[in-house]
């Protein structure tokens, strides 16, 4: 098991909206990792799109992301790309 963690800033103009959250859930399942987002005291798992949406991450939100699993590094890279990109996936 590998664990990867990273502090990121949300880049998308409309925040982590439906499509971004959908892709994050897909990343978690594609790479078979547990992917978590923490903002302040709250931690959610990316497998729950509703949890992620309800964090209401707007552009500029500072979050910590953690991936746990065999392919944690690859998953982290994909997740970071989605979270920090200004464009919709």
């Amino acid at each position: 098991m590998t664990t990867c963690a990273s502090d990121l800033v949300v880049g998308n103009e409309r925040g982590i909206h439906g499509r971004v959250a959908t892709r994050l859930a897909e990343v978690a399942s594609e790479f078979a990792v547990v992917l978590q987002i923490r903002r302040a005291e709250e931690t959610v798992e990316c497998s729950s799109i509703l949890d992620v949406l309800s964090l209401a991450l707007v552009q500029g939100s500072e979050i910590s992301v953690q991936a746990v699993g065999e392919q944690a590094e690859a998953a982290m890279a994909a997740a970071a790309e989605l979270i920090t990109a200004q464009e919709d996936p």
Partner: protein
Amino acid sequence: MDDNRQPVSRTLQGIGVSPGIAAARVLVMKRHAWRAGWRHLPDDHVEKEVERFLLAIRTAGAELAQLREKLAADLADALSIIDSHLLMLKDKMIIERTVAIIRRNSVNAEWALAQALSEIKERFEQIDDRYIRERYADIKHVADRVFGLLTGREHDGLGGDDLPVILVANDFSPEDALRMQAGNVLGFLTEKGGVTSHTAIVARSLNIPAVVGLEHATSILATGDLIILDGRTGQVTLHPEPSEIRRRQEGNRRNHAKADDLDRYIHLASETEDGYVVRLSANIEMRQELPAVLRYGSEGIGLFRSEFDYFQGQEPPSEEQLLATYRQLLETMAPHPVTVRTLDVGGDKFLHSFPGNGAWLDQERNPALGLRSIRFSLYERDLFRIQLRALLRASVYGRLRILLPLVSALNEVRQAKAVIAGVMEQLAEESTPFAANVEIGMMVEVPSAVVMADVFAREVDFFAIGTNDLIQYSLAIDRGNQYVAHLYEPFHPAVLRMIRQTVEAGHASNIPVSLCGEMAGDGLCAPVLMGLGLDELSMRPAVIPRIKRMLRHSRSNELRNLARQTLECEDSERVREFLAATLPHFYPKDFYQS
């Protein structure tokens, strides 16, 4: 009931928003209000109830997956909506929470699901960001589907049966609208909505006949009723005579056969047999229509109505929001031109944004002649500058043409150009890149602009003739007034002469002249317009292949002769007689029923 009488045929009137005729049985989709009755379960029923809930989830998932399968791969936005709905369906906040409530309280699944949903709703209502908060609508939609399965709603036609239907509903969701793409939907009818509603726009881009705004449609009509729906006139015939249905269905089959033949023209050049080119471009109002624009082989966007972004929220859109829209249009269409018409509305639409200005708006007794379009933009210059900044910043991503609507005097063009020059200067100071060669054109839709076209032609880079308004203003006809609407006449010789005069004035100054308006996509009008020398015709994307076929079966000298002879007619009746007698020889496929 033993009743052999033929039900009496009756006609209902709605608003036609997407032309075409459909004759089929209706499928009435009633969206149930949440009436999740509470039911206590005996202990040994609890696990069965959990199973029943999970089955409903699986079935809903299968329905969505099936819908996804049927969708064309180019509808990326739509596919991604369905993907997110599939994830919501499997979300622990829905599944685990509902199951937990069933077990803990020994209650029925409907009530438990309603509970889980209200908890989610509570969380979402606390979100400050409006865009994310509004995703609750999607969750509600997904839950509605499960709820419908639990309560045993009527089968909604999604499954294997391929009987063609006309869908009837209060209003449609994204999935409903997309399902129409999936094959067995011939048309649709809603109680809500107007010409510019989201539903109407989707219908037009999918080329499905649609009527909206027919009140009480879901109560008047019952699933299985036969109707004929005319998406042009808005007329709906309930229980039509059998002979009437046969006649209409025959027409439908012919239309389908025609469509197959038309597909061949999508990738061919838009030119006559002797190589005379007329650009055929698209009129659209949302970036979501881009897939249709590409599918029908449009060579650019001849008219982007920029109003949609302005009516999404309480506040006018930000520069960044507009930039995202314009950039996508330009990038998608490059190297073809994208013509964006600046805001074309009256000030009444913005009443809430400019509270101090309410006074003058109350006085507008004649909105068509009032503070609207370019007049409004020049009055609210800050709003205008935001749109211009977004446009100019987008201009580096493709070929942009800026179109000024409702110009009636030279001064308006000069003032608008001065504002544009000011914005360019500001961008240059900030070192923000923009294309220096952006073309600036004007709509020719007010009679004074036609009369003075030679003067205007020296001030702008192109003309776009807007026939819908030009006809209304020059014939003094309000098309929305049922008592005079019959006088609205594209073939009035005055209209044709104005088009010719504008083309000649434009060409004398070496600027291109396009025409956007319903005339451009009308089979009877288009050959005349081509013969009048228009460089570009802009129309609904779906009609482009047909107009291109006519163009490719023409010779330029024949088109010019046709236009010349049409202009010799003294009134619109003669024009129609002449064209009805002449055109079928040139375009047998369009005028003879094969």
